[in-house]
């Protein structure tokens, strides 16, 4: 037998369990030799006959997979639906949850705002990649381990149908409330420098909010995030649910909450001049900051649970 057939047989055997090799090698060699002899008897040239026989046998990896009864797919139809369902639920919930946790910790640590946002997004991307990779690996292993596939077969019944989503009218009500709240809060914030219950010695109004927010333009970041979050709420109402939309919407909500936590933790929301002018007790500013952080945490938790509920309904 020439080197071409040897290489073919070796390549095939390398992909087989050792205990199968001897037997398959003998049989495969005999089969190749028989086929080559047949072609030689029909008048073919020796080299051509061998090439033709090996070409007919095809990719050794495919042949070896046949001998070893290995699937030639990563995740087969039996597991595919469970795989996509688990992956969707994990991505739609764990990614926002991790982003929220990282953002919260960085915000409370009073890191610079760019660090807070960068770390939050970085954590979201890393988590998404890990979830995708490990879920895929897990299902590929189950696909290749017959013992793991002997789970009691869950036959599908109509009981497994998703609950009907809340009525469109109820969701429309939520949207209207959200829009009204956004307009009111933005108006109050934007009017804060010119409308105030307190005035300074020169008779100018004292801003309730920290002038730092205007000096750095940060107030516009807040409003932009709030507008983006509202836009995603509208998108969810009008556009069909999709995983990228759900994750992006959740991340915008997380970003708004985290930015608020960071600003409150670093005491950049209230104007110290205003609290003094209004004669508030010294602890008042601190408690208002704590209150804002609690509200922001509520938003984070709500974002994660809502994502979970929506992913479950798909």
């Amino acid at each position, binding site marked *: 037998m020439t080197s071409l057939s040897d290489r073919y047989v070796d390549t095939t055997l390398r992909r087989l369990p050792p205990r199968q090799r001897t037997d398959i090698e003998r049989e495969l060699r005999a*089969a190749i030799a028989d086929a080559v002899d047949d072609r030689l008897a029909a008048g073919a040239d020796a080299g051509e006959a061998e090439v033709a026989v090996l070409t007919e*046998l*095809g990719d050794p990896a495919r042949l070896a997979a*046949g*001998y070893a009864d290995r699937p030639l797919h990563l995740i087969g139809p039996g597991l595919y639906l469970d795989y996509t369902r688990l992956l969707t639920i994990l991505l739609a919930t764990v990614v926002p949850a991790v982003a929220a946790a990282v953002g919260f910790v960085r915000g409370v640590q009073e890191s610079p705002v760019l660090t807070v946002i960068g770390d939050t997004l970085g954590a979201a991307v890393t988590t998404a990649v890990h979830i995708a990779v490990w879920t895929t690996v897990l299902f590929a292993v189950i696909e290749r381990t017959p013992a793991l596939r002997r789970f009691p077969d869950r036959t599908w019944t109509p009981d497994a149908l998703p609950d009907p989503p809340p009525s469109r009218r109820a969701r429309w009500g939520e949207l209207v409330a959200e829009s009204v709240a956004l307009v009111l809060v933005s108006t109050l914030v934007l009017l804060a420098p010119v409308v105030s219950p307190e005035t300074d010695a020169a008779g100018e109004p004292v801003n309730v909010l920290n002038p730092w927010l205007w000096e750095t333009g940060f107030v516009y970041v807040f409003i932009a995030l709030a507008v983006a979050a509202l836009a995603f709420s509208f998108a969810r109402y009008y556009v069909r649910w999709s995983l990228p939309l759900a994750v992006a919407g959740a991340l915008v909500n997380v970003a708004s909450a985290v930015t608020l936590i960071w600003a409150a933790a670093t005491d950049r929301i209230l104007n110290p001049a205003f609290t003094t002018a209004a004669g508030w007790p010294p602890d008042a500013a601190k408690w208002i900051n704590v209150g804002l952080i609690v509200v922001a945490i509520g938003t984070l938790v709500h974002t994660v649970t809502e994502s979970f509920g929506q992913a479950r309904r798909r």
Partner: protein
Amino acid sequence: MADDELLATHLQELRRGTVVLACLLILERPNYGYALLDLLERHGFAVDANTLYPLLRRLEKQGLLTSDWNTDEARPRKFYRTTDRGTALAGALNGDWDQLDTALRTLKGES
């Protein structure tokens, strides 16, 4: 072109499984892989070598075939033979094939 492809796909679907029955029937008399490939082809069961060889081992593992090495000749060959279990299964498959045939004839109004 597209029609040929469509036909090929559906023929493949229709014939899937008939190779097993043909193997079990032919191997009532012991034979080896390459000769079986040749016989199947001559009887009109087109099957690739890289499908048939693993299939024989799978059927052996399922107890439908048994095998022996024949070293009488210069080239040792693995001979497969249908077991009693394989014969019984072939009978069941054959019965099903006849039923299908009758059913199709009835559908065509020929019975």
